[in-house]
């Protein structure tokens, strides 16, 4: 790979104002729900009141007659209705699941499962019409947690689902709610446990939690008379929306244009499609553009949170070494297979060099919403379990928990549980940064106070990106990209282009365009955009440099290898009178061969994994059970911080989501499978008053797989907080909490022996 010859950056590492900033602080930026079109009508979705029910009939006739209603759709309106898809292997099964989650066909599998949709003159009329749709249900007993769902006699969500063992490809004889089983193993576990000085075994549970993005899902669609479709939506991946919608509507991909609106948060939750095909079908039937919005309750009940989990961990230590770990992880997939248990099982041991291990992973269907990705999906719950057990082992053996982490740390060459060795990573460096931090060096004093630490890992992604950079005649550059900007990537990409071209950041204007206007870009997810689209931006910049060198060589009548591009200038190696700035050559583009455009479409390999180590101080109120976060420090290997403020922001945001997960957030269900806290009042996310300033320590171990050393930074900060806080509470109270959330009720009950 090409690398930049000078590591003394001019733009990278500075903190300029983001290009989309002014329109976002003035209220002018247009998010998905802000779109208005001539003739626009409004769609709403009818959802199942039952967690598990067979749908016997759906009668929409009264709703269709309701004044102001333009169209009503159900699963029968899909060109390939879910109940008509034959079982023709995995892709057909996946398509049936995808269709069934968008609009249920034969069964409602969770409360909030979409059943039908109405488009009407305004949202109120659409809601009135929803009340006139008559659905006959045969209510079935729900299965609401993994352990119940795994029982032999559990009610089945899908009588045709069998357990697939991923290592062998074998399929179970009897149907089951367990969709997959997988195992990772290494070394000699029995011998390692036999020789261990200390062993701790614990069971942990976590509840389903939501990403909690402030903007509800939305989609606006216009189905033209010629069959072309335009969709305006808030999504982490416009191309994914286009391709999935084409798949479920049996439409050619090129006939669908997706316009990515500004997105109000996602954290993985805006990767799936829910409303887009529904809005398209309503538009087809009504002949009008249709905007469909979810309410907050629908977001909780009908989108994709992350799994509740049950995890058992047994770990053994010999001397100061972690020598043996056995773990079983069972994750709720929700109504259809696909929990992040794989990622949980593959990340949990990554901070450690441990030779003997066995990990069992179960993906389990339950009558809850189909889970979606949530920031380092699968890793936080797994880290909660292993990092709690390690803390307990350290306490038992009188070891300093950070020194222990340093002595057992993974480094370049350490094998992951998959057997793949790590490239250059910054695991040790984050632990060392924590040890040297002012926080760790300060005392923790006072009654009911404690300190905890925990580490975490996330892979980070690469995948596909396309960009085009057009050089204008005044030397400014339009950077055309297709990656959703969910938190500052216009800035981080423009900065990388400015660095590559040696021109000021302010002279680059980045724009995120629709799917007709740029090559394929995979989703903004997996912490990949600044890394992978950054790689594309770098290559496009190098493309421009090569073209400019060729033109300067031609102008000066010399071979190309005598011309050098440096700091935004071209000069001759042999003739010191020959020099052109980027601006001067850009002005001559028409005379030197036409417009200058740099392009890159690539599959980015070499994503660098990210490690984090966190320290937290808490105070526990023994009377109310309230846990106060007194101080928090997060260290993280960020590769190279392109825009340090937005890197810090990612870490601070991830930590606070982790604090919410640890202390308050949970999907609270009644026995019939109804979520009883589906509002922001009752699903209690942290407010500004609940958290202190979050101190960050950016450790920069450049990723060898990127010319500027970029690593994804967005996900790993949510991995350590759950365990770090549990460890701090254990330090403060002597009580080891193994069930999340550690809410005031649970804490006060535990401290008073009332569990």
């Amino acid at each position, binding site marked *: 790979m090409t690398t930049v010859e000078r590591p003394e950056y001019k733009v990278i590492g500075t*903190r300029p*104002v*983001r290009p*989309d*900033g*002014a329109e*976002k*602080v*003035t*209220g*002018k*930026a*247009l*998010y998905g*729900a*802000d779109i*208005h079109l001539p003739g626009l009508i409004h769609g709403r979705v009818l959802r199942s009141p039952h967690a598990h029910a067979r749908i016997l009939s759906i009668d929409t006739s009264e709703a269709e007659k309701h004044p102001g209603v333009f169209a009503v759709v159900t699963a029968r309106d899909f060109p390939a209705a879910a109940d008509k898809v034959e079982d023709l292997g995995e892709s057909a099964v996946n398509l049936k699941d995808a269709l069934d989650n968008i609009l249920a066909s034969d069964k409602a599998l969770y409360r909030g499962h979409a059943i039908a949709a109405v488009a009407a003159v305004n949202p*109120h009329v659409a809601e009135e019409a929803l009340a006139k749709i008559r659905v006959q249900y045969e209510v079935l007993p729900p299965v609401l947690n993994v352990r119940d769902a795994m029982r032999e006699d559990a009610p089945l969500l899908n009588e045709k689902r069998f357990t697939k063992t991923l290592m062998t490809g074998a399929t179970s004889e009897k149907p089951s709610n367990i969709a997959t089983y997988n195992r990772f193993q290494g070394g000699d576990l029995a011998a390692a446990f036999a020789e261990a000085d200390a062993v701790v075994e614990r069971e942990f549970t976590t509840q389903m939690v939501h*990403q*909690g*993005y*402030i*903007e*509800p899902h939305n989609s606006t669609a216009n189905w033209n008379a010629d069959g072309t479709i335009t969709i305006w939506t808030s999504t982490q991946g416009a191309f994914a929306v286009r391709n999935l919608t084409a798949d479920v509507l049996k439409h050619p991909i090129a006939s669908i244009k997706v316009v990515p609106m*500004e*997105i*109000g*948060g*996602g*954290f993985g939750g805006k990767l799936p499609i829910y409303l887009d095909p529904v809005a398209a079908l309503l538009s087809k039937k009504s002949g009008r553009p249709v905007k469909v*919005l979810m*309410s*907050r309750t629908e977001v909780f009940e009908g989108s994709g949170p992350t799994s509740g989990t049950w995890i058992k961990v047994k770990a053994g230590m010999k001397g100061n070494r972690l020598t043996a770990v056995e773990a079983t992880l069972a994750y709720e997939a929700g109504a259809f297979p696909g929990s992040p248990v794989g990622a949980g099982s593959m990340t949990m041991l990554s901070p450690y060099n441990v030779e003997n291990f066995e990990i069992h992973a179960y993906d389990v269907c339950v009558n809850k919403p189909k889970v979606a990705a949530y920031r380092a999906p699968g890793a936080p719950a797994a880290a909660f379990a292993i990092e709690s057990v390690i803390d307990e082992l350290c306490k038992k053996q009188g070891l300093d928990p950070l020194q222990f982490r340093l002595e057992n740390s993974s480094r370049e060459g350490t094998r992951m549980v998959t057997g793949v060795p790590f490239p250059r990573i910054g695991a040790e460096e984050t632990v060392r940064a924590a040890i040297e931090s002012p926080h760790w060096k300060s005392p923790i004093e006072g009654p009911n106070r404690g300190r905890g630490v925990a580490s975490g890992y996330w892979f980070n992604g690469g995948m596909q990106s396309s960009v085009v950079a057009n050089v204008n005649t005044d030397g400014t550059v339009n950077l055309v990209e297709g990656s959703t900007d*969910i*938190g*500052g990537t216009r800035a981080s990409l423009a900065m990388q282009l400015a660095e590559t071209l040696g021109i000021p950041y302010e002279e680059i204007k980045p724009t995120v365009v629709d799917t007709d206007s740029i090559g394929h870009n995979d989703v903004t997810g997996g912490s990949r955009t600044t890394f992978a689209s950054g790689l594309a931006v770098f290559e496009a910049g190098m493309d421009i440099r090569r073209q400019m060198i060729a033109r300067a060589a031609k102008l000066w009548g010399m071979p190309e290898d005598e011309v050098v591009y440096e700091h935004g200038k071209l000069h001759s190696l042999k003739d010191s009178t020959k020099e052109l700035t980027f601006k001067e050559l850009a002005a001559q583009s028409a005379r030197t061969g036409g417009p200058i455009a740099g392009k890159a479409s690539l599959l980015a390999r070499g994503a660098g994994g990210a490690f984090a180590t966190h320290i937290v101080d808490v105070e526990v109120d023994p009377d109310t059970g309230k846990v106060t976060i007194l101080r928090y420090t997060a260290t993280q290997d960020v590769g190279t911080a392109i*825009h340090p*403020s*937005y890197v*810090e*922001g*990612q870490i*601070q*945001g*991830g*930590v*606070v*989501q982790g604090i919410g997960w640890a202390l308050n957030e949970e999907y609270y269900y009644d026995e019939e499978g109804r979520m009883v806290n589906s*509002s*922001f*009042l009752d699903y209690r*996310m*942290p*407010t*500004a*008053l*609940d*958290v202190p*300033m*979050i101190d960050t320590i950016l450790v920069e171990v450049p990723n060898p797989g990127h010319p500027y050393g970029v690593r994804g930074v967005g996900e790993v900060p949510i991995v350590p907080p759950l365990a770090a806080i549990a460890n701090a509470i254990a330090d403060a109270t002597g009580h080891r909490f193994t069930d999340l959330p550690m809410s005031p009720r649970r804490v006060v009950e535990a401290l008073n022996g009332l569990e």
Partner: protein
Amino acid sequence: MPRVHVTTRLNGEETDFLCEPRQSLLEVLRDEIGLTGAKEGCNNGNCGACAVHLDGRVVNSCCVLAVETAGREVRTIEGLANGDHLHPLQDAFLQEAALQCGICTPGFIMSAASLLENEPNPDEHRIRFWLSGNLCRCTGYDKIVRAVQRAATQLQEAQS
């Protein structure tokens, strides 16, 4: 449903609109008037993304009926900047990188503007208390609090 004629002052200008009595101020601002800076995050007063000023007080516009604004003074995020001159809070949010996705930002700025109009020199706890009706899921609030502190300093320096 019959529509009602309402006259109000919106961002300093006499404005009139027609609305159904059941429509919230948020719905009318967004769908009838076309000012989409106030956002709908929950539509029941829990997230603050729709915060606007009504007669100088910060309110969640999803919890105010549009007909209630008759004869009153409404200020939205669109009325905060002076032409292309940003309000110190808007500028501070940019300088401090106090937004990521930005959907909560208009609500935070309107709440913070109300705070600084009432209390020009709030301490960190006071800022956190005042902003606790606004939810942000991206930033962890750290940089938002710093932005409000920065704007407070700037506003005070401008006055002295």
